[in-house]
């Protein structure tokens, strides 16, 4: 063992009020985003359709995922100022829903993404490395996407920047853990090159959509192949319990990432429609939510200070998600609105069922421990 100068004291637990406010606003954005998705896919719901339908994507990506990632990063840094990122995006999401503040809602979300960029830079400064640099590129894409959104550009023009934010944030996290397998330096260089080219392609999409979308799709496939080849999930999938569950989520997510890239290459830049639905939901539900389903049992205890015990029931929402996503994409590709609607309903059930499974299995475990102790 070697001695070293401490740069931090004992890490403080996350402040409860900031966690509660951020998580609650993110949860409201998620619920409204799901409602908007169901309304768009043809379901009649007893909610006012305006904001959730018009801003389904923004609520899901910025109001929910942006806030969630901001919370995760704030907990990691253990400082107060990073909490501005999830608070601004969370409050912006609530203002969109309440139709409050006009353009200020989007401006707050944009400001939150600028803070998140500063947070990723602060992490980069703590340790300059590829795995801390890739999320900075992701945050740059989020700022770019939100700047376009605030400026009034259409969602199909900027959604790729949101996708890049999520893909590069997740890639950075997986690269960090992938170091446990010690990938060769050439593989790290390849990932750096793929990431840089991908960001360039994504940022060029509003000005040259045809070639830039195809290039972004091809690079998305490249990133999926890299993750499949070098992620530690390839090893841990051969274990058992929680480690295996997480690995299964990750590996299936990488397949969806490649599928979404293939759809981008095949379909190219699309306006709203079935091809758009298929491409985006292969990415956001197949890839991103697989990552959430896989990471949540590990990250939630850090945020909520509540232990989560693995249970095989974790696979139920996971299976519902992927089966219903297959149905949805099948409906999209053959032009069946009915399959698409039922698929979307299954997607919503999986997203809502996942936290329910965590809570129910957690309570059962707590009762079991109480009866034993």
């Amino acid at each position, binding site marked *: *063992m*070697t*001695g*070293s*100068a*401490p*740069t*931090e*004291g*004992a*890490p*403080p*637990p*996350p402040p409860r009020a900031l966690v509660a406010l951020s998580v609650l606003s993110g949860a409201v954005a998620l619920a409204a985003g799901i409602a908007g998705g169901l309304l768009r896919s043809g379901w009649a719901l007893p909610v006012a359709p305006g904001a959730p339908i018009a801003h389904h994507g923004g609520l899901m990506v910025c109001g929910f995922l942006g806030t969630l990632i901001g919370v*995760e*990063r704030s*907990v*990691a*840094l*253990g400082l107060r100022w990073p909490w501005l990122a999830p608070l601004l995006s969370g409050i912006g999401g609530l203002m969109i829903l309440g139709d409050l503040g006009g353009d200020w809602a989007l401006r707050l979300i944009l400001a939150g993404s600028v803070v998140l960029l500063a947070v*990723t830079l602060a*992490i980069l400064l*703590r*340790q*300059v*490395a*590829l*795995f*801390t*640099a890739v*999320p900075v590129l992701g945050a740059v894409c989020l700022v770019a996407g939100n700047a376009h959104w605030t400026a009034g550009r259409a969602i199909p023009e900027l959604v790729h920047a949101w996708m890049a934010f999520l893909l590069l944030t997740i890639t*950075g*996290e997986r690269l*960090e*853990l*992938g*170091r*446990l*397998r*010690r*990938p*060769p*330096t050439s593989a*790290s*260089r390849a990932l*750096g090159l793929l990431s840089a080219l991908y960001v360039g392609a994504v940022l060029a999409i509003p000005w040259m959509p045809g070639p830039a979308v195809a290039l972004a799709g091809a690079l998305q496939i490249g990133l999926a192949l890299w993750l499949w080849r070098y992620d*530690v999930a390839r*090893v841990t999938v051969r274990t058992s319990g929680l480690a295996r569950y997480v690995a299964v989520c990750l590996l299936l997510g990488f397949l969806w990432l490649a599928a979404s890239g293939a759809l981008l290459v095949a379909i190219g830049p699309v306006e709203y429609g079935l091809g758009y639905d298929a491409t985006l939901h292969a990415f956001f539900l197949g890839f991103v939510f697989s990552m959430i389903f896989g990471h949540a049992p*590990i*990250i939630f*205890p*850090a*945020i909520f*200070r509540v232990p989560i015990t693995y249970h095989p029931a974790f696979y139920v929402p996971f299976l519902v998600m992927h089966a219903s996503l297959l149905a949805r994409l099948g409906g999209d590709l053959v032009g069946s609105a009915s399959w698409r609607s039922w698929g979307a309903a299954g997607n919503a059930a999986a997203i809502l069922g996942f936290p329910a499974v965590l809570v129910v299995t957690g309570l059962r475990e707590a009762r079991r421990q109480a009866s034993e102790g």
Partner: protein
Amino acid sequence: MDLGLIYSIEETPAGLRVEMTMTSPGCPLASYLAGEARRAVVAVLPEVADVEVVLVWDPPWSPARMSEAARARLGGSSADDGPGWFSV
């Protein structure tokens, strides 16, 4: 211990001081794992009055700190572990 996250354990007048790190400065589990490390020490040495866990970032963690057993379990190549953008 297998991952090499524990840098030092020293006796202090108050009890024990543990210096540990994370695989990344962006790891949200830092506070949680520091608490788990403290609980693990207290479970083994309940007679120690005070266990202080301090998170350090210098030197940064690298895969070279992993035990042979952990390396064998996770597989992978024998990459260069030195500092640099593309070294792991």
